[in-house]
């Protein structure tokens, strides 16, 4: 089914009864500053390719989101231990008929390590970001960032590069040694912004009735708390008081989104804590998030949009369940996986749900997915691959 453009109209005008920020809250536009520095020859600005979609932001502006022709800046945590997350993002692009590049000339943003151990510094982090931006520019595809920490950190890097000539000069010299120019994207775009922008197209293609599903949403801290101005805020969702990301997508799919009192709290990931001090992560995730969601909403699923949040909320529930009296788990999915399921994706070949820890099977049953049959099919795939070393599941196999 072809996509009709434009599918989203920016909501820049305040409406009666809807919260709107005044001009005194207008923030510096880093996009404008990026363009100004481009005009001065400080760097090449990688322009958002046409056709693009426009989404409303916290600073009451608009953000330009590329529809396709994107360079997928993958997430090390997603690809490493929640691979169905990345696979679902790719699958959605394929099903919408959108061209993309899955690069090998990409490193992690290294920000998980930066926030966890501080064994890095400002110049190194900026150089890693700008090296990836240059690689994307070289490929001709526009960067689409899969991880919210990469996204938030790259926005920090952009702000620092905009404000500090000395840093720009230092990074320019480093890239010059690699034969790369200094390139800054016009907009830093998270995949969940792309999903938000195409949510109605996804909803048109859903094959399941989701009207009986209730979800809670956990928004990722590094999406809307770090460099906040260009995060998506939509007067139609929470009256514009909170970021609309994920919630607007779930609502477009016909899911009931339940509110809970600790919505603003982080998931407990902690960067360092999730790796070497997990008692904190587990306790926070279960006591502040999962228990609040269950007591106040009792959802069928919690949806989020970041590597660390899926990891912490999903994996932390097993140990808590081991305690007497703790009730059944709440399945945790990225909204990318949930959208893919809604559009008929295979729960194992595409969404790779066997990598998840909290029991997702009751959710699949409620969504009308025969997980037993789908698992049997996947086990057949695995048996075939075992019998044929050096072979792989393909996109054709995935359907």
């Amino acid at each position, binding site marked *: 089914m072809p996509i009709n453009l434009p599918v989203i109209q920016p909501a820049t005008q305040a409406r009666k009864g809807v919260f709107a920020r005044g001009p005194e809250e207008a923030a510096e536009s880093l996009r404008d500053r990026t363009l100004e520095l481009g005009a001065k020859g400080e760097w090449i600005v990688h322009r958002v390719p046409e056709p693009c979609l426009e989404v409303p932001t916290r600073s009451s502006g608009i953000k330009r989101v590329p529809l396709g022709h994107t360079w997928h800046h*993958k997430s*090390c945590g*997603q*690809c*490493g*231990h929640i691979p169905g997350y990345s*696979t679902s993002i*790719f*699958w959605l692009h394929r099903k919408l008929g959108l061209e993309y590049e*899955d690069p*090998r*000339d990409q*490193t*992690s943003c*290294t920000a*998980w*390590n*930066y926030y*966890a*151990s501080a*064994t890095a*510094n400002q*110049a*190194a982090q900026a*150089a*890693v970001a700008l*090296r990836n931006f240059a690689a994307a520019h070289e490929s001709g595809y526009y960067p689409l960032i899969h991880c919210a920490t990469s996204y938030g950190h790259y926005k920090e890097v952009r702000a620092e590069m905009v*404000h*500090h000539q000395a840093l720009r000069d230092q990074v320019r010299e*480093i890239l010059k040694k*690699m034969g790369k120019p200094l390139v800054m994207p016009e907009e830093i775009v998270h995949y969940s912004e792309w999903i938000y922008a195409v949510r109605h197209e996804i909803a048109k293609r859903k094959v399941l009735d989701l009207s009986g599903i209730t979800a809670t949403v956990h928004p990722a*801290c*590094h999406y809307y708390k*770090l460099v906040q101005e260009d995060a998506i805020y939509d007067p139609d969702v929470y009256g514009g008081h909170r970021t609309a990301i994920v919630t607007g997508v779930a609502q477009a799919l016909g899911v009931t989104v339940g509110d809970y009192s600790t919505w603003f*709290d982080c998931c*407990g990931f*902690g960067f*360092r*804590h999730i*790796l*070497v001090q*997990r008692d*904190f992560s*587990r306790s926070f995730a279960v006591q*502040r998030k999962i228990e609040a969601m269950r007591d106040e909403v009792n959802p069928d699923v919690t949806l989020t949009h970041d590597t660390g949040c899926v990891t912490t909320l999903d*994996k*932390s529930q*097993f140990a808590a369940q081991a305690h007497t009296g703790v009730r059944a788990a709440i399945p945790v999915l990225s909204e990318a996986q949930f959208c893919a399921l809604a559009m008929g994706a295979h729960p194992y*070949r*595409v969404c790779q749900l*066997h*990598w998840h*820890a909290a029991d997702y099977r009751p959710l699949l049953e409620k969504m009308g997915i025969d997980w037993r049959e789908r698992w049997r099919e996947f086990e057949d*795939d695995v048996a075939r691959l*075992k019998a044929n070393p050096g072979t*792989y599941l*393909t*996109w054709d*196999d*995935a359907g």
Partner: protein
Amino acid sequence: MSATAAAKAAAVPYSEKERLFSAVKADLRFEDYLYGCYECGICVAVCPSARFYDFSPRRIAQAVAREDVELVWEQMNGEIWECSQCFSCLKCPRKNNPGGIVTIMREVAVRNGLHSAQQALEGYSRIIYKIMSTGTQVSPDMIRPEAFPDWGPTARETAENLEVWRRAMPPETMHTTSTSWEVDDRTLTELYLIWHLTGVLDMIKTLDESLHMILVDVMEEKLEEAGYPLS
């Protein structure tokens, strides 16, 4: 502060504490992270670490704003490592960034070999090795049941089926087990060059000399092959 901690603090000359604080203030990011403090406590109310530890983003912002050299030194030797780096504290009505101040304080702690950094990062070396040498962090083969027993049977099942489960996914770049995706050799060499040129390897040397030697071994060969001068 305990008597032992107080004795330890007293043994460090004030000039050394001042030197460390000056290093924090000299960071380019510092001027964007601190604007003053209303003492309203919003940052504490939203801070996850404040709920579980003796940690307060307000105390961090105030100590730095008041130029309390002794308290900043104390914080750099302990509580900064409790911060979750979630940046919920950016709720601050003065636009302070206590989480960002903590990031800078941690970097100064690492660069200057403070014991608190070594203690906080105990057991973390394999992660640093992975991210610096492969360009991806927490690769599939790190999900071992002995490392993640609290993640339940999934960690065991993943480890047991790792090779074939990685082949049972469609994206061609993700069939790897020791990295999260396939990274080109040239890309990796460029990453090594960044670590060399920005002084990150020197930071590692201060933190963990053995890890530094291993990383230098891995990187120098690649950089020389690619024709990058290391001096």
